[in-house]
């Protein structure tokens, strides 16, 4: 009978690979276009007298809002099917993960369903942001004490 190694090699041989020639350019173009549009909007917001940092936060919130709405309307996954990482890597993908798991868990209740559901993807992202942020804080604090930073 077939052993683990030979069968794993067989699987590798028979499984088609994703066509990078198609996925890479679309991810580059859509991701780039989203960022360029964001930049355009940031410029417009700054012209209205908003300071730089807040202007970019306004763009982030807008992208989150639109991605979340498109997810709720059932349109985000159709766009992301073509755009791939172009939409799933920017903050739009984060918003989509949070909203899509919220939509799916809503029927299981507002507390343990939706309440826990929103964190299935947001949770890990927030956790690791906080962990690495804290680690950075410790290092920064020590360096500051030593007078390096």
């Amino acid at each position, binding site marked *: 009978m077939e052993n683990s190694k030979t069968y794993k090699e067989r699987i590798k041989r028979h499984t088609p690979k994703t066509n990078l020639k198609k996925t890479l350019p679309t991810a580059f173009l859509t991701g780039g276009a989203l960022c360029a549009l964001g930049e355009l909007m940031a*410029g417009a917001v700054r012209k209205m007298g908003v300071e730089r940092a807040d202007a970019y936060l306004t763009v982030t919130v807008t992208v989150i809002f639109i991605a979340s709405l498109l997810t709720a*309307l059932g349109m985000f996954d159709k766009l992301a099917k073509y755009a791939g990482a172009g939409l799933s890597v920017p*903050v739009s993908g984060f*918003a989509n993960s949070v909203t899509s798991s919220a939509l799916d868990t809503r029927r299981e209740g507002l507390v343990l369903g939706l309440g826990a559901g929103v964190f299935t993807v947001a949770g890990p992202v927030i956790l690791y942001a906080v962990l*690495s942020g804290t680690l950075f804080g410790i290092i*920064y*604090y020590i360096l500051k004490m030593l007078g390096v930073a």
Partner: protein
Amino acid sequence: MNILFSFLIGGAICAMCQMLIDLTALTPARILVALVCVGVLTYAVGIYEPLFSEAGCGVSLPLLGFGASVAKGVREAVDASGILGILKGPFTAGSVGCTAALVFAYVFSLIFKSKSKVA
């Protein structure tokens, strides 16, 4: 000029992640986590700020921006309140994106339902 940089840098980050998704077993959720950590790192070593001033949304929209704003919050908090700032900081500047995503997700899921995936 900023717009062109945004396009190029943002596009490059997305293309790089696409390659990671396609060639490795990394799922998009893991990529998001990795990007956030890389965001903290790039801020910590001081390359995020110069990149951000050139490319703006090109680095702030990919989840790098979230990590960087967490790190920024930590730095400002440590500067203001010393050791306690390490714990005060993470949720300050990074709060905007998180809160927005959670609130919108909550509200929309009260109004809408998941749909069947047949075109």
